[in-house]
Structure formats: C-alpha cells, structure tokens
C-alpha cells in the first residue's frame, strides 16, 4: 500500500514537471477559466435575470466550476491515450510496480491541476463580486464536492481513453458526452423557463445535482424551487452519484489498464 502511494506520488511528480515544461498548458488551465468567469459573469450576466439577490454573477459560478470539472473527462482521457500510444503504459506495466499506481497518479495529478484552476477562478470570481455566504467550512465543502466530481470525471475519462485508445475518437466522444451534460443542466440557466419534459431531464442530470449542491453550500441562490427529487435534495444526490460513479469506473478502468494495448 505504501509502495503504491509512493509510486503514485512519483507519477504525480512526473505530470507536474509536464506542466512546468508546457507553458501553454499552464496558460490553458489558468487563463481559460478566467476568461470563462469574465465572459459569463459580465457579458451574459448583463443580460440574464435570475431570482435572488446575488444576481447572475453569484448564480453562474457553481455552474462554471462544474463545467471545468466536466472537462476533466477529456484531460485525463487524452493523457492516458498519449501514454498508451507512445509505449509508456507498456513500460510501466512491465515494471514490478503496483499496477494501480499509474492510473491513480494520473487522476490525482489531474485533480491537483483542476484544483489550481478552481482557485484561480474563485479569485477572479471574488473580484467581479461573487461571494460565498455560508462560512469557511461549507465553502470548503462546496469545493470538495466539486473536486470529487473532477476526480470522478478523471476516472471516467481514464476508462474512455483506455477503451477507445485513440485521441481523435476520445475528443469526439468527449464532446458528445459533455455538451448535453453541461448544457442540459442548471449550470448556466435556471430550469424554470424550460418546457416540462426538458426540465425533468435537466433535473435528473447529475451535473444539476452537483451544481445545486455547491450553490447550497456556497450560499448562492439555486434560482429554482421545487421539482424532482434530485432538485429537492441536491447534496445527498450529488454525493451518491459521484461515489457510485467512482466505485464503478475505478475497477473498470483498472481492468482496461491491465489489458491495455496500444492501437497502431
């Protein structure tokens, strides 16, 4: 177990070096989220009306955080495919190291990076007027829940990457999966204005649960009242969905890794 931890730690270190070597990626995980906050907060915020006192700037932050977590699917999947196709996975698998450490190292590193992104976004959000109203603990719990989502998305991404084994296919599929998950949710708009059937779909979308849960924890307005069970009880729903997702994807990704062979 300690071996697995130290192996994973060495592999996290490897990815941290990557970031230092690739300023463009550091820029990507820093500037992009800033742009998102500014665009949504100011541009869309000027036109959007949501219920509650905080206005759209408060409403949108949890939504953008969740959107960034969702993007971890692609980040991890593309990274895993890269390692697979340049032979590194074979190299690691032929070493007498714990086989889980490679995937754990990858998903933990991606979680660390997305935590950094989150911190930058929170700072910019604060500057444009976003506030968390429920004290330090609940605010941290809100970020914790979002990072748990990022971690779950990483494992989902690892599974997708190891299954498809092809960078183009991964990008295409990730786009198809992420679009409806992000936009058929309450991340960017309150669900009140949606037609009934669409509202039901959006309410049951797990992304909505995570977003509502973090709004509750941050003390930001949900913008919608009532609705289906997940909309009424977002925190337990979000926790259950994320824990189940991790419990399913971790062993599946592990199994895919054992058999992984590059596609050439």
């Amino acid at each position, binding site marked *: 177990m300690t071996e697995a931890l130290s192996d994973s730690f*060495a592999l996290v270190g*490897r990815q941290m070096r990557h970031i230092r*070597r690739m300023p463009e990626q550091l820029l990507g995980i820093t500037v992009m989220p800033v742009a998102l906050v500014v665009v949504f907060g100011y541009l869309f915020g000027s036109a959007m009306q949501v219920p509650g006192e905080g206005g759209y700037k408060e409403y949108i932050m949890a939504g953008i955080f969740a959107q960034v977590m969702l993007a971890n699917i692609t980040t991890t999947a593309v990274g895993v495919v890269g390692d697979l196709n340049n032979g590194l996975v*074979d190299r*690691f698998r*032929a070493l007498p190291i714990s086989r889980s450490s490679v995937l754990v190292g990858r998903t933990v590193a991606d979680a660390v990076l997305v935590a950094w992104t989150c911190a930058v976004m929170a700072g910019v959000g604060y500057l444009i007027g976003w506030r968390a109203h429920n004290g330090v603990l609940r605010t941290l719990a809100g970020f914790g829940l979002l990072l748990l989502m990022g971690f779950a998305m990483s494992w989902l991404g690892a599974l997708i990457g190891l299954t498809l084994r092809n960078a183009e296919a991964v990008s295409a599929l990730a786009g198809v999966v992420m679009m409806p998950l992000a936009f058929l949710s309450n991340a960017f708009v309150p669900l009140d204005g949606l037609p009934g059937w669409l509202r039901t779909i959006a309410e049951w979308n797990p992304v909505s649960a995570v977003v509502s849960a973090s709004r509750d924890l941050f003390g930001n307005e949900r913008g919608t009242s009532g609705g289906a069970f997940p909309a009424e009880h977002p925190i337990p729903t979000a926790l259950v969905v994320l824990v189940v997702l991790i419990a399913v994807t971790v062993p599946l990704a592990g199994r895919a890794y054992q058999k992984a062979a590059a596609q*050439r």
Partner: protein
Amino acid sequence: METAISAEGLRKRYGDHQALDGIDLSVPTGSVLGVLGPNGAGKTTTVRILTTLLEPDEGRAVVAGYDLAAQPRQVRANIGLTGQYAAVDERLTGRENLQLIGVLLHLGRRGARARATELLERFDLVDAADRQAKTYSGGMRRRLDLAASLVARPPVLFLDEPTTGLDLTSRLTLWEMIREQVRGGVTVLLTTQYLEEADQLADRIAVIDRGLVIADGTPDELKRKVGGERLQVSVAEDTDLAVVTRCLAGVVPGEPAVDLQNRTVSVPLTDGMGTISAAAAGLEGLGVEPEDFAVHRSSLDDVFLALTGQQGRTPAARQARRPGQPDPAGPAEDQAAPHTIKEKQAV
C-alpha cells in the same frame, strides 16, 4: 539456472486471427536468441506475452526462473523491455526519465539519481541528459529507451525491433551497446525484421511465421539449410526465361527457382565448377546470351525468403511443421520446390 527463457505451446487468438499457434522457445542463460519473422508473424505478441503484458490463451513459460502465470511480479522484477516504439516520456529530460524509473523501482531518490548518471554515461547521453527527450534524435531515443529498460539491472532483456527505423550509424552504436549487455551476462531475446541484425547479434535464430516457429538454429545452420551456393542466371527477354529454366533443369537434379520479375533463374551449385561449366556450355549451345551469370552465396535473406515466402503456405505443410516434430521439409525439399517469392508470382 541454465535456461533463462523457456516457452511451451504459446497460443493467442484475436477474434478469428490466430496470432500465435503454439510457439516453443528456449533461450540458454547468457545467450542471444534472435526472433526473426515478417510483419504480423507474431513476434511482438510473443514478446508481450513473455513480458507479462499479455496473457496467452494456452501454453506456459518460465522467464528468469519464474513462472509467467504464477509469479508475474517476480518476472517483471527480472526483465527489461525495450518495445517497438521508444517508450520515453518526451517532456521529461533524459535524466528525469531514468530517475523516474529508478524511483518506481524503489532505488531511493539518491540511488535513482546515481543509476541515471551511470546509464547516461554508458549510453553516451551525458550531453543531452538535461534536455527534454522530445529534442532527441531517433537513435538517442532508442538509447534512452534501452537505458530505461536496464535501470533495474535485469538479467533478462527483451528487445522488440530495437533498431527499426534507425540509420546505419545509430544501428551500429545500438548493436555495440546490446553486445556490451551480453558480455555482462545478460540473456537477450531480440525480435527483428533485419536479417543482418540477427546474424550480427544472435547466437541462435528462431524464424517465426504465422504464429509458428518454422525453423531454428544458429545462423550458419540456417544458411546451410537453404543450401550453400547457387548459380544465378538473368536474361533480358521473358522468352529466354523458359529456355534457360529448361537448360538449367537439365544440369542439376531438382527444379530451378524462377524469379519472374527479375527474369532470373537459379539452381543450387551441387557440383561446383562442374555445374557452372555444364550450365555455361548448355546456354551457349542454345545461343542464349545471359545478362548476368553469377554465383550467389546464400545469406540469411535466402533462408528467410525460402522459409517464409514459400514454405508453410499450405495447411499440410503447416501441419507437418508443428514444432517438436522433425522438420520434414528439410534441405532436399527446399531445393526441390521453386524459390520463387510469393509476391512475385502474382506479377
């Protein structure tokens, strides 16, 4: 431990493609086995199985004294693998690549650093040690890759096409580095498409095709198998080809080998000068003026083409060549059938 690698009846099937059809291999400790075969013959699959990356459907193998199925972790602790594509992290420097492997092998931070420095020196990468691997040339990458597979000082080394795509100088350098390992007592299983590479490095060669070992022996034994020297006659006109073939058939027992594309006929030089003078006289009598009339020493290329291009293509022949049985298609039959290369027959 007398035998470093032994495999019995390895089989692997992908869908309806039988990648390995019962591979038997045995590599004495400290020796080099060259596994030679065309693309898709099963070379890489064999290596992947023997390095625990892939489970065989059937068969068993013992590597470095450990059973592959029962003790995969011990096997991994005793092998080095250099795959077909240089498996290095492009964004890490050469030194960092080796240190990462060292840390993963629990050499400790200091131990990993010392081992990396040592390997960088041995593999002539000191100047490039602190540059990202993506700036390396193909040869440097391969050297780094080989160094990475040696961090743990494994007694058994698997090299899957280690010099594919390299220029001659890099190839020679890498060969020397592999030889150095062998001198140090390392057992090597090397796959290659290059006959010269096998000839240069291997103590024994196993030729595999369609998932079967179709011949094995020392390079010399294999060359002898297709029959030492051959007389080759090339002509300018297709019409002459048949004439020459008939003429040469009368000179030696057995059927001449015909290469339609190059309009070349060849026969084994069974009777040395006698065969040459008889052939020359015969051709002169017929009034054929050959473009080329030469004696050709058989190389591993001939072995390879003879074995993979022509032999073992019929089910009966394949059946007859199951490993463990005497090879019925010995030299005599090899000589008897035309040495025409399959692809060329299609022309």
